[in-house]
């Protein structure tokens, strides 16, 4: 029974790692496209996202099976719950990569604006956060997870600054309204990507330390 359970848990871990690797590749690719303006790199992003969606369904089914057949408790239960949540975050990251690819296509002729606006720095930071979140997930490393949690504010600040920068640009030149609008959507996507990376790190803390730290709310201990 225990062997069977361990096999199911290992199989779930493997699926999560494979999905996370695919997401990482997608994100890496769209940010390279954003940086270089090479829209050729965006081709195939949508098709690849289909593979991520397949993992999404697979992982959900694996979790359902483990819960139904083994009724795990304590750390095992937290692993399955965190896998379900992380699966959801990874799937959303995959969708965001598709969205970013679409914006890259629409903003490829505004490279100077992209460079001037710090969007690449923001993207670099968000990409790094996701990479770290995935590394933390694979290695069960709370130190790396902590790094991710601490970085979220940096991306949020980039978001605010770049938004104001783009609004100012739009005010000065009507011709910039359309490209800046695309870029505002783009930074919104990058900011969401960082949020999902943060959530993945929070899920790891929940799994390994039995602490719910999201929303910065501390639950009171259970009342007897």
């Amino acid at each position: 029974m225990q062997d069977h359970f361990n096999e199911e848990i290992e199989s779930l871990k493997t699926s999560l790692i494979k999905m996370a690797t695919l997401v990482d590749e997608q994100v890496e690719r769209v940010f390279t496209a954003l940086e270089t303006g090479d829209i050729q790199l965006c081709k195939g992003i949508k098709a690849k996202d289909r593979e991520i969606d397949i993992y999404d369904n697979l992982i959900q089914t694996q979790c359902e099976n483990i819960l139904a057949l083994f009724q795990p408790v304590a750390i095992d239960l937290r692993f399955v719950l965190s896998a379900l949540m992380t699966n959801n975050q990874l799937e959303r990251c995959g969708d965001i990569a598709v969205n970013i690819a679409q914006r890259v296509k629409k903003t490829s002729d505004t490279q100077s604006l992209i460079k001037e606006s710090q969007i690449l720095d923001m993207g670099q930071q968000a990409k790094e956060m996701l990479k770290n979140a995935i590394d933390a997930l694979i290695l069960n490393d709370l130190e790396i997870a902590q790094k991710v949690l601490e970085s979220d504010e940096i991306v949020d600040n980039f978001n605010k600054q770049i938004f104001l920068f783009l609004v100012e640009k739009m005010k000065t030149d009507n011709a910039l309204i359309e490209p800046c609008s695309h870029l505002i959507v783009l930074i919104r996507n990058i900011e969401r990507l960082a949020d999902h990376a943060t959530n993945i790190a929070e899920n790891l803390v929940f799994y390994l330390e039995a602490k719910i730290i999201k929303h910065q709310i501390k639950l009171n201990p259970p009342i007897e």
Partner: protein
Amino acid sequence: MTQEKNIKIDTRHLNLYFHEEKILKDINLEITSNQILGIIGPAGSGKTTFLRSLNRMNELEPGWRVEGQILLDEIDIYNSELDVISLRKRVGIVFALPVALPMSIYENVVYGVRLSGIKDKARLDEIVEKSLSAAFLWDEVKDRLNLSGLRLSGGQQQRLCLARVLAMEPDVILLDEPCSGLDPISTTWIEDALTELKKNYTIILVTNNTMQAARVADKTAFFLMGELVEVGLTRQIFTTPVKKETNDYITGRFG
């Protein structure tokens, strides 16, 4: 009862020996009134011995020796002046296998009550209805109370045994693996009954089915090799156990 903490049973430095062998080792456990305490642990951990020590059932076999105290409402039950028969009325026990007596359902319920001297038919009728209702069995048997208890299903027989214990109006109910031979539906009946009964009784449930403790117990105690490893709120034991041994046992990694 210790008022401040609502403690019904309090074991203090309880050691139990069978001949020279120490079966229970320094058990300190407070059992709260009107709660269900689940006791879990592998075979040979001492959980049944502990349960049977709470109404001095172990003494039915020679060779047992007790050190320390078991206080029931602050009175030491191993005090030499205490009447063991009245103790066992106050602390009833239901065993793993239902022991329906070869007599009618009605007589099964009133068996102990009659022995204690109650003969009045109206009083006995009242006790039968009340006890069978509390054991979630009344509706199924009220029209056939003269049927032999042995004709009931395993699940019904177990609830009949529970009704027999309830008829004695105990304070505490001990259950030793009460659902081990029952199907899931009968198990649900017993668990529902326990959840209702705790409003009026203190219940101690030994179970090998850890998930049963998770479902019904307010607190859970984990025993291992005669020691109490950990006791806590059930939701804490099954989510964030403090001791590694508890974690290994409930997650099936033990051994």
